[in-house]
């Protein structure tokens, strides 16, 4: 197999870093996207609703 120790190290030191940065950026954009604020506010308050039946 072509996967030796050195190439694994190289991949994790380069692409590993980029992939983490890209994922982190993606998450931050999603959470801080202004348009998402409304759904988040609804999500966090709607669990406090006392109604204990499935929605229609």
């Amino acid at each position, binding site marked *: 197999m072509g996967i030796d*120790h050195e190439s694994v*190290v190289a991949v*994790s030191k380069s692409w590993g870093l980029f992939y*983490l940065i890209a*994922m*982190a950026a993606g*998450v*931050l954009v*999603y*959470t*801080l996207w202004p348009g998402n604020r409304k*759904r*988040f*506010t*609804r*999500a*966090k*308050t*709607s*669990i*406090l609703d006392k109604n*204990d*039946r*499935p*929605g*229609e």
Partner: protein
Amino acid sequence: MVTGLTVSERHMALFVLGALALAGLAMAVGGRGDPLAVHGYIVLAFSLGLGFVVLSALFAPEPPESRLSEYYDDPTRVGIILSLAWAVAGMFVGVWVAALLAWPELTFVDSAWASFGRLRPVHTSGVIFGFGGNALIATSFHVLQRTSRARLPDQFSPWFVLIGYNLFCLIAASGYLIGVTQSKEYAEPEWYADIWLVIVWVAYFVLYIRTLQRRKEPHIYVANWYYMAFILVVAVLHIVNNLAVPVTFGHAKSYSLFSGVQDAMTQWWYGHNAVAFFLTSGFLGMMYYYLPKRAGRPIFSYRLSIISFWGITFMYMWAGAHHLHYTALPQWVQTLGMTFSLVLLVPSWASAGNALATLNGAWHKVRDDATLRFMMVAAVFYGLSTFEGSFMAIRAVNSLSHYTDWTVGHVHAGALGWVAMITFGSLYALVPWMWKTERMYSPRLIELHFWLALAGTVVYVFAMWNSGIIQGLMWRTYNDSGTLAYSFIDSLVAMHPYYIARAFGGLLFLTGAVVCCVNVAMTIRMARHARKAEAGGDVPLYGQAGAAQAGE
């Protein structure tokens, strides 16, 4: 409960139990003379026993359509009871092994099953998988339905998940006692149990996704993300770490596909993520639902909860190498594990802080309500144990802490202070909802439990910190001639008082769990009486289907 299943679901249950019984029979016959046969008989007895339960209600009428306008909570109720039963059993064995360490002569029967090495995994699996796992399954069904405003898609699969999972736990615990183990910590069960767990776990994930697809809420509440990460990642970890080849299909023993340092790395990638996704992620899901619910306040920052979710999900994956400092593992992998462990503190504290900030402004509730206090203390211990963990992951610190009781102290700061506390808090909130009573039978017993649990945790953790640091220092103290100043037995003698203290702290904690069981049992009784009085006698049982189910 069986009457709550539709007739075709009852047929399905019988079919699956029949297939399981056949599998048990095959194990019993094929594994003659091997521990595998013992497990075959257990599987056989288990499925036949349940088969009779289903048969006894096979011809009951179909459940009323009105059930579809309610959530399906029977599996949650049973899951709560199973969780508490495992809690008491697992912690009882915990106190037992603690006592064995303090007084080794206590190995009162001269047989293998009563030895420390076999009882210890019964403790760890009993509390983590039995107590923790059942609590996670029970609460996840509840949270999933409420936050999606959708009923579970069918009534068979939640039972398959819950009961199948408990069969796994039973096979695991009984296996250790008869000497069946893969010798991989937290992954001890052998190949056949592992295969069964994969089936159960896939059913769990599919059930989760199917319910989410039916959701009436546009956004998936963050608690579900944590539960889903728990289910999905545990599946991946479990499958990879347990890749093994059985000696023969009639033999319990198997050999891992990995060897040497690869095996060690795979095991601790698994082991650490078991901590992360079994003992943390799912319980964070619990916290993000029950804490705001109980406090009557929305989570302080929803955005922060999402960021911390992805934070721990990314970072935990890379932290496992901190279990293998100073080993044959390449240095850079150790450094990677250490670095990620340090960064991990950020999302961990974000969650703990988010929980505490949610309570800010409701401190009077925390003071008056022991249930909420359980959750608050859990968040504090979550913060503490993650700080401690990140600290211990530093290579130089680990050179002191590794192999000592400091690790055991860290484990139980997390396990007792965080995992058990958040579970008890959530169960105290959930039980009255599930059995439709105003409140728990006795708030004073909750109060008593809280103090027993807190005292037990503090005694346990302080004893282990002391003993761990002393051990670590004694093992690295040299005298003038450059040899070790203390023999191993010296350090053992120095441990003795701490081991007694630990056993005592554990006993307090166990007593608290027993108090919880009594309180829950009395609540269920109270609910039953109230329902009987309400029904006023002259209504056919069928008219109160919901009540009859709840009481079972």
